[in-house]
């Protein structure tokens, strides 16, 4: 072996063995960390499912709660599901156009220095504690006017904005510059190029980002405690009044002394969890699909 320049093989073997051992150890540690991350998700999903599925039935989704009911009265959380739907829908309607416009400005029109600045602002906004946003909206819209679903939507919309803008910026950056040049070279104005050539390429990515943002805010509790938590038990669609939501309902039911309420809280948590998992998987699938489409356009 020494003829191949591997002189002192015996001496080096010890070191090699130690290196191998360290390598194995590090690999194992990394593997364990990865397994832990997966396990935590698994444990959460499993424990919620185990405790929630007893109460999971159609009544939970379609019936409204019966106040002060004791014992096994069949009652649901329809008001919370409808409220969440209304609030998240309005939040999306507010955050989506603003987020897309922010992304278009940053990626298509802004100077590089402004681009970095706005990007940083979006990251900071994304990192703001949700309770801070809750208090902000409370001071802005709730004080003097009372709670409303609209105020809740506004708070969730603030949370969604950086998520939508960031993901849209990412897909806009993927649109090849040659495509913009093709349009501009024809003598087409920039706004028209952006609207008709660039933006259609990014729809898949925008839908993906929005789906993820919806999944993220559908489970938000803190901002809604300030803005839409003093609610009745009836199903309501009017955004001018406060509406019950799933996360707030879970929070309130878990505070109740009645074990039946706890069971309902678990069931509602399970529904929320399944919704978020499905939305995330849908977003992933949409992302792969749109990336494939963009790749073909190159």
């Amino acid at each position, binding site marked *: 072996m020494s003829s191949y320049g591997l002189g002192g093989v015996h001496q080096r073997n010890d070191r090699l063995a130690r290196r191998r051992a360290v390598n194995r150890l590090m690999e194992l540690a990394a593997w364990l960390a990865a397994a832990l991350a997966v396990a935590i998700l698994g444990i959460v999903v499993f424990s919620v499912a185990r405790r929630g599925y007893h109460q999971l039935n159609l009544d939970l989704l379609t019936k409204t709660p019966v106040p002060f009911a004791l014992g096994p009265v069949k009652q649901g959380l329809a008001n919370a599901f409808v409220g969440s739907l209304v609030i998240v829908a309005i939040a999306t309607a507010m955050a989506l156009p603003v987020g897309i416009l922010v992304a278009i400005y940053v990626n298509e029109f802004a100077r590089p220095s402004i681009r970095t600045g706005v990007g940083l602002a979006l990251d900071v906004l994304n990192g703001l504690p949700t309770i801070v946003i809750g208090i902000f909206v409370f001071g802005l819209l709730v004080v003097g006017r009372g709670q409303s679903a609209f105020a809740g939507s506004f708070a969730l919309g603030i949370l969604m904005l950086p998520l939508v803008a960031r993901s849209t910026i990412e897909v806009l950056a993927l649109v090849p510059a040659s495509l913009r040049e093709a349009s501009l070279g*024809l003598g087409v104005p920039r706004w028209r190029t952006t609207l008709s050539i660039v933006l259609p390429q990014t729809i898949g990515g925008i839908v993906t980002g929005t789906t993820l943002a919806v999944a993220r805010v559908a489970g938000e509790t803190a901002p809604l405690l300030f803005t839409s938590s003093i609610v009745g038990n009836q199903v309501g669609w009017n955004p001018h009044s406060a509406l019950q939501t799933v996360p707030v309902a879970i929070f309130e039911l878990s505070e109740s002394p009645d074990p039946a309420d706890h069971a309902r809280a678990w069931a509602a948590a399970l529904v929320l969890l399944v919704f978020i998992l499905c939305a995330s998987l849908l977003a992933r699938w949409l992302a792969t699909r749109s990336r494939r489409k963009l790749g073909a356009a190159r």
Partner: protein
Amino acid sequence: MSTTIEPAVRVETRRQPVPAPEKLERVFHIEDLTAVYGSKPAIKEITLDVYKNLVTAIIGPSGCGKSTFIRCLNRMNDLIPHFRQSGTIRYHGHDICGSAVDPVAVRRTIGMVFQRPNPFPKSIYDNVAWGLKVLGMKDSLDERVERALTRAALWDEVKDRLKASALSLSGGQQQRLCIARAIAVEPDVVLMDEPASALDPIATQAIEQLMHDLKSEYSFVIVTHNMQQAARVADMTAFFSISTGGEGERWGELIEYDQTTKIFTAPADSRTEDYVTGRFG
């Protein structure tokens, strides 16, 4: 059939002689054009005239600023941050560089075909028709599309599948589609930035033929690093080269600008001669 050995660069003998510059109409009058990216000069003090209904070729080694130059002619460089230029470019006597000039209007009359085919991810028909629609040329759309595709020598190949995606075409077909798209909106000048560099010889020939056929209606400026191509298609040829200054600065400069026959057979500058005979570059 006997075969003869072709010289490396053969100047087409079929070409019609270029009239004297005094008799030609000037499309571009470029004076002292200097272009800078940030603090890096790309081209310095270029002065030349581009004439109507001729094909003008820009040749030179990589990095000599050919593309920068041609992109100045329709304000395409405006999109690049930190790009600055000085000097004047007069288009039919009008300054097109000033901040008061709308670059969109400039690009409207001075079309461009890019190095890599860049069709829109739309149908073949819509690739040509979209620009027409956006620019308000909506009357007799079908005829306009057919005429543009015919002129770009693509009509016969695509007339049965106009609704198919443009991305399903071959590279050469895509580039001809891009040419059709550019000429459909009836520009005055067509700038071509190495239009055949990504294409095979047959597609290249088709594009060269097309320039030859269309130059009675348009003026072409073509950037190419392929000398044979310049010799085949161009009436006038400008040779750019890289100059170096102190501190390792490099920029592109116009060495010689003359009739193509002259550039390839009797260049005035020894640097041109070195380049076209293959001793350099």
